[in-house]
């Protein structure tokens, strides 16, 4: 079981913003799809620190990222 960040695509697509990508401490983990205008998480690299949740929910009040439990292979 891993605790990782997950982006709610439908919510995230409303905004053209990539602040979470700019504040994630891990390289190449929170990525941004510039065609769909959504951020996405490389689950195998995410360490579950939830800094992105702080940026998205507390700073920007957009609530597009949540933390989820995941089992290997999901």
């Amino acid at each position: 079981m891993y605790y990782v960040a997950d982006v709610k695509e439908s919510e995230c697509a409303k905004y053209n913003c990539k602040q979470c990508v700019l504040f994630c401490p891990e390289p190449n983990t929170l990525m941004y799809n510039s065609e769909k205008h959504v951020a996405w998480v490389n689950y195998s690299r995410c360490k579950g620190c939830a800094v992105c949740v702080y940026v998205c929910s507390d700073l920007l009040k957009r609530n597009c990222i949540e933390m989820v439990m995941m089992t290997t292979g999901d």
Partner: protein
Amino acid sequence: MGLEYVKISPGFEKYMPKDYVDLVKYGQFGRQIDVQQIDQIKELVEEHPMCAGCYMAYFVRIFYASLPKPEDTIVLGTAGCARLALSQAAVPFIYGNYGDTNAVASGLKRALNIRFPDKVKDVVVMAGDGGLMDIGFGMTMHSWFRRENFTTIMVDNEVYGNTGGQESGMSPKGVQLKMAPKGKKFDKINAVELAKIAGCVYVAKLAPTNPKRIAKTIKRAILAAREIGPTFIHIYTSCNIEYSIPTERVLADAKEREKNDFGFYEWMTDEAKQYIEEQEKKMAETKA
């Protein structure tokens, strides 16, 4: 290294690891990127064993994205947390004994000047508060007295993070740590003023709350170190383990410290200012 060493010889692409092929195809080598474009590139730093939510790891990530010439840069580190990520990047990394980073960097920079007189080679030291202001204090100061042309970056987590939480010269006065239960009795060392007096030509102090500002500061420090003299950046990178900061609050903590005692501060000599302005103009022109 150099740009020609980074590139894959024709016909060998299929034998190289995918991460490396991505790095050459979509990476930073041979081009200038804006830190805001960090989502569109393959970053120089790879997966590393630093703690979840570590803002030193975040600073290292932004640091590599802001290098003006990653293919011609050499990074030096010492024992401490930062080397865990620094050693996982596609930029040559030298790991000295504890505290000798600035002495090694002095020799390295001089040797590079002799070996590559017509090329620009950047040498950057990134070590913690223990490596630069406690154990490596003498070598750090003397490299500045000698006006050696390289950049020193102090990632200040205010504690000896991976040996159990002993107080360092940079821990704030009164703070209680796991291996300093009575509280620290002395003031935090004023590294910025020391650097100014010791002969640095560009000195900056900041907290990692604004990636654009971090990138600009790092670029300026590296540019000024090419021609003018030693440069120094003091950055607050909290230790969320030893200071018991919940991982999702590390950015909030950095913002708070920025308001209190880590407000953005930048100082440079007139000569450095003139040189930086010229170089920044040149860079803007080549980009446009």
